């Protein structure tokens, strides 16, 4: 059988990405219908129908199975709902190391919207705190609907969402401010992430609500970028005198 294969002349030119095994073992390619009636289990006999050799099919099957398992785990593990510890461990140890670099380790959970404020369109406003400058900057402009604008909206949304985590909190606002010092012409900026939240459907006639999702002061002193977080006014708790604790609770020291 092997001797028969060696006698066959590959019809297709060998490409740069074609596996070496395939170029040696791929037999003369017949018309697609010519081999259609033969089954895969007759691989040795059907080598003349343009299908790869049994060895190549075996290797390809293994790789495909591995990839499909990785794809399934990526979808299961990259969901916004989280994942089980077992799946996460298998996924991160055996699949992420080779799927992440190729940008294939993505969950594809395109929810489009959940109707939450965080699903509204976000934007970044940067304005000088004091002194002169070129005025405030809003990116993207409200009317801009390009893919570039979509990327800025993602950046703004990521900055707002990151404030809920410990590791990423404050990183993006500082970076946005630092990156826009020159554009605004001032080294002391107020970085604000705003969003325009559509009204509920039941109140569809109402205008959308402009919210501030994040606000921080970013300044550069002697080359160091400093971040001073500030809560949006609507989120500030009212300042009141401390009420006496009931029943003396917590009064002891």
């Amino acid at each position: 059988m092997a001797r028969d294969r060696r006698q066959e002349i590959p019809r297709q030119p060998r490409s740069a990405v074609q596996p070496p095994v395939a170029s040696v073992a791929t037999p003369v390619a017949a018309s697609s219908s010519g081999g259609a009636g033969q089954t895969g289990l007759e691989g040795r006999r059907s080598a003349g129908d343009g299908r790869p050799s049994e060895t190549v099919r075996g290797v390809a099957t293994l790789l495909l199975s591995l990839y499909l398992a990785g794809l399934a785990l990526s979808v299961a593990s990259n969901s916004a709902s989280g994942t089980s510890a077992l799946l996460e461990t298998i996924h991160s140890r055996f699949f992420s190391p080779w799927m992440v670099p190729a940008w294939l380790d993505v969950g594809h959970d395109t929810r489009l919207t959940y109707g939450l404020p965080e699903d509204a369109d976000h934007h970044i406003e940067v304005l000088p705190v004091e002194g002169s400058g070129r005025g405030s900057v809003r990116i993207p402009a409200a009317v801009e609907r390009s893919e570039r604008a979509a990327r800025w909206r993602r950046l703004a949304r990521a900055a707002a969402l990151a404030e809920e985590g410990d590791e990423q909190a404050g990183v993006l606002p500082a970076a946005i401010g630092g990156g826009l010092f020159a554009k605004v012409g001032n080294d002391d900026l107020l970085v604000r992430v705003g969003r325009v939240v559509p009204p509920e459907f039941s109140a569809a006639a109402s205008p959308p609500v402009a919210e501030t999702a994040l606000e921080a002061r970013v300044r550069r002193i002697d080359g160091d970028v400093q971040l001073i977080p500030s809560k949006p006014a609507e989120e500030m708790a009212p300042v009141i005198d401390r009420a006496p604790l009931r029943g003396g609770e917590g009064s002891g020291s």
Partner: protein
Amino acid sequence: MIESPRNAVADFCRGGAVTWEKFWFLPATASRLAVVRILAGLLGVALAWSWGTDLVGWFGDGGIVSPAVLEAWRSPTAVSLFDFVRSPPALWALFLAGVIAFVLLAAGAATPIVAPLAAIFWASLLHRAPMLAGPADDVLAAMLWCLVVSRAGDTLSVDRMLAGREPAPSWRNRTALGLLRIHASVIAAAAILSQLKADIWWDGTAAWWLASRESSRIGIAGILARSEWLTNLVTHAITLFEGAFALGLWQRLCRPLVAWAGIICWPLIGLLAGETFWGGAMAILSFACLPTAEDDTRP
């Protein structure tokens, strides 16, 4: 005559193996993939363009996506060619090299070399600023790797003109088409599973939320606001379509219908959601899922 359980299991395994071999290894021509290659190349140029305007502002020295930002955002196993360049000329050189790779991919020039280069460039670009990546970028990345597997440059290409002879069908084209179909189905299934976690996809008002955002490309918010039923209809039509698409690609009779529906409906959903390129990318995937002439010859 009653078949023994052992024979039944053997028949089942044999049938599965035959189906697997036909799905992945039956030779196919490159014509369908050539169109996918051209469209993917053009989509790559368009998406890359959206990074170009702010390239230095994001990735340059003192840019927004600084190493500190990357450290907090990026997976430890991620790597990017853009990590090694910071100066504006070097950034632009690498970026333009990637754009040229997309152009060559669309033209089908040196496709076996250009296709992996385009995929590597795209993954590198996305890893340089993962928080800026959107669903269209994810779909394009998957498509590019599928094209790497294929012999998509065999037809409708500069390579074909230079070769001057009719290319033979290749099993690699079938494998690539299979992978594209699986991705199309998985992406649609993942989308609908994700959407149905939220009440608004059940109460039928999700279309209103999509249309009333600034980024929506279809100005139907006013129309939807006047009719709850229409809003419900559009919302449920989206989920119904996504479900039918994910499943219908695996049913022989439904496949052409849902694939054609995908070519029309995905861009519309993309326009409504403000994800135009994602809609376009899904339409390309839908095109790849249309039955081929070789499929009709299958027993």
